[in-house]
């Protein structure tokens, strides 16, 4: 694994490896000294073409807990006002010796471009690209679900997948990179996913996805569900005829107080309610639901740091891309490799 660009091409073994490593990283968060020296001397650049304080500080905390040097690079530039080109920015970061680039971009596929071109030879981590993917969000969601699922099963999370878990993802799937990354990762981990959305907010072609599609929230709950993930409704959708009004949206597709009560009456006592944040309280999720004991919203934030530590560690701790040229270093390499038992 050299980059983390999407969950669509993330193998089961790599997914489990990240989640298991994240469990160890989570333990670090519980310690008095929340810092590990693992990435000392490595430089991680947070390259953000789109504002997202939450994601940036989560990656920043993760990198710093691993003792990496962190450079924040806010390259604001929209399709309207073009800033410096991605190519020039990447070459600048390469010249600065970046070992990893955490990139958030409004354009789908921008991380793929960084990884596929020779503009920069660094590990590329997709921190959300357009309406394409947000793999670390899906991994932290899966991490949160796996802890819950293992606890219910009374077994350890390490090594576990999500076989049999029923997950509903509800809301603006069409524009959601979170939904896409979750669909692929949850498929890989063996969960059963149902997308719940108005037909206008589902992409053409969704019928090829490894999940069920429903237009009815109440039916989906009635069929039984172990986790409900509510997606954020973006403000700009509201006046583009994707749905008639926010009132109708929240009545048909939101997780309101009635549906929160329905979980109890349906006997779904262990069902969790998830949200990637930031929430529109009263639109896609009611305050009672967001603040209920079922809500994992804050656990998701906490787990985000662990998952991002795991990702940075697994991408950056391995053999450096250029083999050491000095004979002395080469000899010490050989010496170390002869003792496997450490």
């Amino acid at each position, binding site marked *: 694994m050299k980059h983390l660009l999407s969950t669509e091409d993330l193998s089961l073994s790599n997914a489990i490896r990240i989640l*298991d490593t994240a469990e*160890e990283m989570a333990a670090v968060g519980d*310690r008095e000294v929340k810092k590990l020296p693992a990435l000392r001397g490595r430089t991680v650049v947070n390259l953000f073409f789109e504002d997202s304080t939450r994601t940036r500080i989560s990656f920043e905390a993760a990198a710093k807990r691993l003792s990496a040097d962190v450079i924040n690079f806010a390259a604001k530039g929209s399709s309207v006002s073009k800033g410096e080109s991605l190519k020039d920015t990447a070459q600048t970061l390469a010249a600065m010796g970046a070992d990893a680039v955490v990139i958030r971009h409004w354009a789908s596929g921008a991380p793929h471009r960084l990884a596929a071109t020779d503009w920069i030879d660094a590990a590329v981590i997709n921190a959300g690209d357009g309406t394409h993917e947000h793999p670390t969000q899906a991994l932290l969601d899966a991490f949160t679900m796996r802890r819950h699922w293992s606890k219910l099963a009374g077994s350890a999370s390490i090594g576990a997948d999500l076989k049999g878990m029923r997950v509903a993802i509800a809301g603006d799937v069409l524009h959601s990179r979170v939904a896409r990354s979750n669909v692929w990762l949850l498929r890989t981990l063996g969960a059963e996913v149902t997308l719940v959305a108005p037909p206008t907010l589902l992409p053409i072609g969704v019928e090829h996805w490894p999940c069920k599609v429903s237009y009815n929230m109440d039916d989906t709950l009635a069929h039984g569900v172990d986790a409900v993930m509510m997606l954020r409704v973006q403000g700009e959708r509201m006046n583009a005829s994707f749905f008639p009004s926010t009132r109708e949206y929240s009545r048909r597709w939101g997780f309101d107080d009635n549906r929160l009560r329905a979980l109890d009456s349906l006997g779904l006592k262990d069902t969790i309610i998830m949200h990637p944040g930031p929430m529109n309280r009263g639109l896609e999720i009611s305050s009672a639901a967001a603040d209920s004991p079922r809500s994992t919203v804050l656990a998701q934030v906490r787990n985000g740091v662990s998952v991002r530590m795991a990702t940075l560690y697994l991408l950056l701790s*391995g053999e450096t891309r250029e083999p*050491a040229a000095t004979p002395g270093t080469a000899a*010490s390499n050989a*010496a170390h490799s*002869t*003792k496997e038992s*450490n």
Partner: protein
Amino acid sequence: MTSVTNAPVPARVVLNQADIDRALTRIAHEILEANKGSKDLVLLGIPRRGYPLAVRLAHKIAAADPTVDANAIVGQLDVTMFRDDLSHQPTRPPYPTQLPRTGIDNKVVVLIDDVLYSGRTIRAALDAIIDFGRPRIVRLAVLIDRGHRELPIRADHVGKNLPTSSTEKVRVRLEETDTAADGSVVNEVVIEGGA
């Protein structure tokens, strides 16, 4: 070097099951002796094979001193994240660190590993320990000391000193972590390769 790895590897057993057991028994008694008893003892095994050795030692100590609960004094200390050679090796996922409930503050911590070689693993372990607390004393026990130190580190308790050439490989196989090629239980130390 490549010819060595391609040719059938000559291997000789230097410690068998009984040898290992004897060595651990001796180390257990040495630890008790050095500590003047079992007070404040904590055994921290370094993954992978240091941990089962620590468990075995804890049981031997408990056998010698009935006041000791073996499970209460043994733990695992992962040093992966503290290594100074992470960037020269394939990526390795970390192992869990599990400390005894009593913690390690003001304890006598004995680090346990299978093979002492360059000393870099132990240096990493010392760094790791500092992040978890402040032991009163830290000692080191290893099953094999094969020499070739790169750091000023020595073991307090050694099962067997094994002079080796740096082209040789010392393989420790324990039933808790390894199985023999034929699937049978294995407890042995083997030297492979060499000129």
